[in-house]
């Protein structure tokens, strides 16, 4: 929508030199906080994000308890210094919506029925934002849930696909998000190493039905790569714990 749109694809490469189906560099570390029951730090491009999980624990006030299953909370929050123009602290409409769809992406994967009357709280702090914070946060939250020992039906892995200069690209960074024609964040449930279903799906921009189907394929490819990094982070944490024992 903005006029001074720069060219985003030059000589078949993206501005940061990536090919269309290439992820940004990604780094995941599990178990980085002491107080939280589970935690994870992720860097995905220039995004820097910390996720923490508390619970299963008691729910206050009591009337919010569910006698048949755990109550899940998800809070997406941006640090005031995480973006170019200082963000006022506290939730805005954007983070309220992201928190809602992110909670709904994780909820069907968590075995809530194992923890009646209890609460599982997932808090995600964006310390530095580039583009794709909601998907990066979900990737970190998934690992933090596993680090906390919360029983899950699988792992949730998320990535966005954008359309820029008419081309579908995986894992868009800031410029591609700002000036692109469309952005489609996906999250998937991966079980036994295979993508089983979609847990988050939003879209804004303009795409044909055909393009959307291609976008899904591209996202699935990216998700499998991220999944490997998530898995690796969990294994490292698990091994370091074994060493201690």
């Amino acid at each position, binding site marked *: *929508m*903005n006029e001074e749109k720069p060219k985003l694809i030059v000589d078949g490469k993206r501005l940061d030199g990536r090919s269309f189906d290439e992820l940004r560099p990604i780094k995941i570390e599990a178990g980085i906080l002491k107080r939280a029951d589970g935690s994870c730090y992720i860097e995905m491009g220039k995004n820097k994000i910390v996720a923490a999980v508390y619970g299963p624990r008691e729910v206050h006030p009591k009337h919010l308890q569910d006698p048949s299953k755990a109550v899940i909370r998800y809070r997406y929050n941006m640090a005031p210094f995480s973006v170019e123009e200082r963000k006022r602290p506290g939730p805005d*409409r*954007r983070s*309220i*919506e992201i*928190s*809602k*769809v992110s*909670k*709904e992406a994780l*909820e*069907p*994967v968590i075995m809530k029925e194992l923890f009646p009357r209890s609460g599982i709280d997932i808090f995600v702090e964006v310390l530095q934002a580039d583009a794709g914070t909601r998907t990066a946060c979900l990737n970190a939250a998934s690992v933090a849930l596993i680090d906390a020992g919360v029983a899950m039906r699988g792992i949730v892995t998320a990535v966005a696909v954008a359309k820029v200069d008419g081309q579908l690209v995986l894992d868009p960074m800031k410029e591609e998000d700002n000036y692109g024609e*469309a952005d*489609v964040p996906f999250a998937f*449930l991966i079980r036994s190493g295979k993508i*089983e*279903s*979609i*847990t*988050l*799906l*939003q*879209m*804004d*921009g*303009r*795409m*044909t*039905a055909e393009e*959307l*189907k291609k976008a*899904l394929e591209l996202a699935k490819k990216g998700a499998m790569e991220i999944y490997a990094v998530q898995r690796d982070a969990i294994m490292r944490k698990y091994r370091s714990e074994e060493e201690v024992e």
Partner: protein
Amino acid sequence: MSEDILLDIKRDYVLSRLRDGERIDGRRFDEYRPIEIHTNVISKAEGSALVKIGNTQVVVGIKLQPGEPFADTPDRGVLITNAELVPLASPTFEPGPPDENSVELARVVDRGIRESEAIDLTKLCIEEGSKVWIVFIDIHALDDDGNLMDASALAAIAALLTTTVPAERFGVGEDFPLPVRDLPVSVTSLIVNDHILIDPSRDEVSVGQYFMTITTDQDDNIVAMQKSGSYLLSEEKFYELIDVSIARAREIRQLLKDV
């Protein structure tokens, strides 16, 4: 307590009828309830529409006033969409600031209008860099019998179609019709078991809030999507949803042509 039991009974009924391949109100799976669009219902607003889908009723009013543009789009009007799920419309709505449901409703409607570029915001500049038209889309729910989303989106675009920019009142030229150049239409489905139920009624939602909203423009492009609700969506269903949403949107768009 009795409310919970009632809900259980409803859910069982919906599910048992689904097993027989039927919806509780006899509709086809891809069929909307009757749709009514009444425009210019609020003369104090610059544009307005009352939309009924079955018993669900929503009013949208459009107000315009001059204000400051965003720094990065100094020559464009500004679009602000707000939804009030007032407690009059449902026993589950509470007074107070917008909760996550009304925020989501407003943002999904907003995205449909914004991403289809339905309003030509470049025509809403009064003085570059300092004064542009602010377009307020205010969604006011009256009766929530299911699928407020589509009713709101439809009322929003219908209200915009009838909006006059009140330039004279603010001493900035002559009134002119708001430039609307696309007709985004949202189609919301409920995904339950292996079925896609278009335009779910409130009783059907007793099975769970497993929604998918797909908004398309007049060229059948998808301009906005929102999976809403804690559920797992298969790829196959996703593809089906795209196709059925495009088809239904085309029909609803015909109704808008008469506005």
